[in-house]
């Protein structure tokens, strides 16, 4: 098995196996903490603490930042931030074990890596915006939401993938 991995570093797990383990992980998360997984909340905490450090008065006057600023406690002192650190560590571990660690820009041969990065930035911007409006991203709202049959989770998931299929045509050059 190991030798094979060395030869082909792009062999991933069987998706059903990955999904199965992910399902077990979500069960464990809910069982231990009563809450689901999440990702974008960590970045939000980062943004809040950044703005709070740079411009404290602005952060306190802003209706959104002020929700997350507690006296004597850094916004970074948050469950999701620690979880995000864990995600980075875990992904690095997996990448290191299978030899996938490599600094590169992944893109379709039809586009330049400059274009890919611009699109990644724009996509990230939109995703960040959307995740805040919908109160959660794919992992927070959709994945964890679906595990507890939350209506919001299903709606968010359908909205993300429905729109994805609708606009897929316009972005085809980026991917295929």
């Amino acid at each position: 098995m190991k030798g094979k991995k060395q030869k082909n570093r792009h062999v991933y797990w069987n998706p059903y196996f990955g999904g199965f383990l992910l399902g077990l992980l979500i069960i464990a998360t809910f069982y231990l903490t009563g809450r689901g997984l999440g990702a974008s909340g960590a970045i939000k905490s980062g943004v809040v603490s950044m703005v709070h450090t740079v411009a404290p008065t602005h952060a306190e006057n802003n209706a959104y930042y002020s929700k997350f600023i507690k006296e004597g406690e850094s916004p970074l002192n948050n469950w999701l931030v620690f979880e995000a650190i864990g995600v980075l560590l875990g992904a690095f571990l997996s990448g290191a074990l299978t030899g996938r660690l490599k600094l590169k820009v992944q893109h379709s041969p039809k586009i330049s890596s400059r274009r890919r990065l611009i699109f990644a930035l724009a996509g990230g911007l939109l995703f960040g915006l959307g995740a805040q409006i919908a109160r959660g991203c794919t992992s927070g709202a959709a994945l964890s939401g679906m595990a507890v049959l939350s209506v919001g989770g299903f709606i968010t998931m359908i909205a993300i993938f429905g729109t994805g299929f609708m606009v897929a045509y316009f972005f085809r050059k980026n991917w295929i």
Partner: protein
Amino acid sequence: MGPLIPNGLIPVEWNYVIAILIGMAFGYILEASGFSSSRKLAGVFYGYDFVVLKVFFTSAVVSVIGLYYLDYLNFLDISQLYVQPTYLWAAIIGGMIMGVGFLAGGFCPGTSFCGAAIGKIDAIVFIIGLTIGIFVFAEAFTFLEPLFNSSNLGHITMVDILDISPYWFILIFTIIAIGSFVFSDWVRSKVKKVFY
């Protein structure tokens, strides 16, 4: 009876340790399933790779079944779990914006962490984009607030709105998921292969 930390069965101090461990498992699974590759993720929209759909639905089905079994066997009180509040229009519009963002950027926040961890520059740029997006949202919050707070339906679940036994819903959901797997394999056998 779980959940353990809200019920005080595990001291709160362990919360962050558990967070890191759970995060590590999460990152490992995502990366090992191939979620660190944006082209693989985007494949679901073009029919050449359905890993997102498969992983997503498998985990949703397994987790919901597992949680309800735990509830049935009295290990867990499912009513104590956090259910995301549903803000109908915020969820739809936010989801649509995320859909466009997904196609443009090729990642979602969780997977972009994975990509960044193994050195994908596009993933790092995506995270920078996320940061800017959240910043934009916060700055424009007064403008977006009506949408953000509109049509609050509360902490509702599919069981509440469909008025159906959760167990039947899970069974139907499972069958739909399996159907979608078969369908995705069928589509994949028709679509031109893309190698990346």
